[in-house]
């Protein structure tokens, strides 16, 4: 019997969700492997449909939890699914919508809606944007596919490991996805991915970035609109804030490869506790100068460190309480 799957997006841009459509036409026919039972965006499935479903094998959940509807959907899917997979930075870490948490929760707008008839009531906006596992009723996610958006090769690696049982040209898939050996071996042996598996690499982006690292000395902060070399030299060494050192690999250095600094959409690598702290530590330890005034000058040139270092991970990294 084919596994029963759900594909769901909460508050997000839908890029991760539509990857499934791209996979079906570009990579492998999904109907050969799975029976899609619930997919609001494509099938128009409703919450009532979900309530009628007894059991689902796998749910691919993308988007952040930003409304009461998102939360209710996530909680119900956790109860009905054997395996809940967070797809994309929004579901895994809160993503870019999580930047909203830097603002005070707005109450004025809610007050404006006071006299609305009950039948036109809208779903409540949550006070804080959360990652999927930041919701009270969700004790765990079973796998994570990071990225903004999650790329086709990694989503397909997750689909073939969790849905196809490793049958779908598995060796080629995992080679293409550049997954660590420790993760691929149990999948190929039929055991499936380990609990909490992250479908990405284990090292930092710098390990796969094609740029040349020459001299680890940080002289001055440069902003991307200012002049910098268009050579293949490491962007951080040139003074641009690039988060490759504090970000999990798996993208192959996609952004740095086109001359744009990494902003951390794959989350932190396993060896890093806090990506922001790691960035501050890594940069400050390589300051060329030792003079306090010059150090102060460099430090003053950093702008919006929170919005930069936690661009995609603020809800997961900086919100300790569930709720």
């Amino acid at each position, binding site marked *: 019997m084919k596994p029963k799957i759900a594909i769901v997006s909460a*508050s997000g841009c839908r890029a991760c969700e539509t990857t499934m459509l791209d996979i079906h036409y570009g990579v492998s026919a999904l109907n050969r492997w799975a029976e899609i039972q619930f997919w609001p965006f*494509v099938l128009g499935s409703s919450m009532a449909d979900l309530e009628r479903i007894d059991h689902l094998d796998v749910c691919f959940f993308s988007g952040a939890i930003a409304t009461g509807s998102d939360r209710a959907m996530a909680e119900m899917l956790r109860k009905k699914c054997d395996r809940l997979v967070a797809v994309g930075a929004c579901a895994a870490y809160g993503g870019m919508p999580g930047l*909203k948490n830097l603002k005070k929760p707005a109450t004025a707008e809610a007050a404006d809606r006071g006299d609305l008839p009950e039948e*036109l009531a*809208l779903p409540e*906006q949550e006070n804080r944007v959360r990652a999927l596992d930041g919701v009270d009723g969700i004790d765990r996610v079973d796998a994570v596919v990071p990225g*903004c958006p999650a790329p086709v090769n990694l989503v397909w690696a997750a689909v073939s490991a969790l849905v196809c049982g490793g049958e779908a040209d598995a060796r080629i898939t995992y080679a293409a996805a550049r997954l660590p050996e420790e993760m691929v071996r149990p999948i190929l042996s039929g055991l499936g991915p380990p609990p909490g598996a992250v479908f990405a690499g284990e090292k930092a982006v710098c390990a796969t970035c094609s740029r040349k690292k020459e001299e680890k000395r940080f002289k001055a902060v440069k902003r991307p609109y200012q*002049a910098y070399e268009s050579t293949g030299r490491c962007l951080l060494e040139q003074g641009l804030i690039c988060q490759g050192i504090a970000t999990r690999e798996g993208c192959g250095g*996609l952004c740095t490869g086109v001359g*744009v600094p990494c902003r951390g959409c794959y989350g932190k690598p396993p060896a890093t506790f806090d990506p922001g702290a790691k960035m501050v530590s890594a940069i400050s330890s390589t300051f060329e100068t030792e003079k306090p005034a010059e150090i102060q000058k460099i430090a003053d040139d950093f702008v919006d460190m929170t919005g930069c270092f936690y661009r995609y991970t603020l809800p997961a990294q900086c919100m300790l309480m569930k709720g």
Partner: protein
Amino acid sequence: MTMQETTTFEPLKGQDAPCRVRVVPDDGDQRAYLQTTGYLDPADLCIGRAVEELPRILSIRSPAHHLAAARLLDRLFNVEPPDIAKNMRNALGRSLVLCRHLRKLHLLLLDPNDPFPDHRASAKPAGRRAAVAHRRAETVMHALGLAQEAAAILGGRSDHPLTAIAGGVSRFLKDDYYQRLTEIADACLELVLKIEAFFREDLLNEGGPLHHLSEMEIDPVPTATATEGKIVVKDRSGKVVGDFPPEKTPEKISVRREPWSYLPFASLKNGAAGPDTGEKMPGVFLVGPLARMDNEAETETSETRLTPSDACRAMLADLIRTAERMTDLYKKENFVGPAIRTVPEKMGAEAWAALEGPAGLIVLGATVDGKGIVESIRVVDPIQINNGVRCRIAEAAVAEGLAQNRSHTDIKRRLENSLLLF
């Protein structure tokens, strides 16, 4: 037929959830409300960020917002990108038009009950029709795959592009890409012509499965486009009735929130498009492929009514026009030159920019402090602008469905298909 109680159509295929149409009894009549949660307010994401990050941050709203934000940076830093950078941005914009329209057409074609009908079922008579639709969907997805590849080459990624930066683009193209882009442009044109033909001949015509799109109609509304950096407003007959620079947007376009929907509504203020017509939702206007239609009428549309079918035909015409331009633009000579960016020397305090994106007009305005931190941002885009028209289309689809005694499922399907096209 009337509905005695509140009826809800939810969720709607192809719409951002939670999105629903609620039909509420109103003095023996019904009123349909399109209620959308909408995405986050752009101000939530952008205020407090370094201004040069706007192209990346806003790209989650739509890939074209990336290009609009880069244009905003050009204005803020008062720089003119080199020709090669302009061509690369323009070429990326073309591929995004294809990506957006083809995704919409694909969703329109998907089987309402099973997105991926099994090929093996095609042997059975009941499955034959689904298999035919599936092959059409494959043609659309083939073209979409090629457009995505072009967008990834030009923008670094197709969904959230990266390469447009202040004063130009972030890198030269690799040698391998020149030939590939030419191949993509030629293949896209061939596929798009095929797609247009089967939509026009088999799907939209009388008796075709999408003929219902011509049955629900609303009064036509004024249109707006971004043309040569200005916002051009035309009346219902296609006559230009006003134009203004992007920085005049707050004087000409207002954005308001209705209590029953999170998604804001943009409307033309009095004087932006002639006298107020005293409608239920005054100032409603339209952007996108229909607004871009040449007055010479590339497809048959009417001055007295507007239907989702018109929107679909305009989208198909837009696809062909874009694919034809791609074959001219995707040539090596347009992407080689001495420089890819003009490095800014000074930063202004406020800037506005307008861009004609795949879904229509995007206007961005931002103010920054002395360190280049965003203090305020204004975004007027198709999501807000077409919201008024979408509400009217929802009302028309429900009214037409009820008048014809259609089932709940049938009305829902018509709502989904028609809303997809705006």
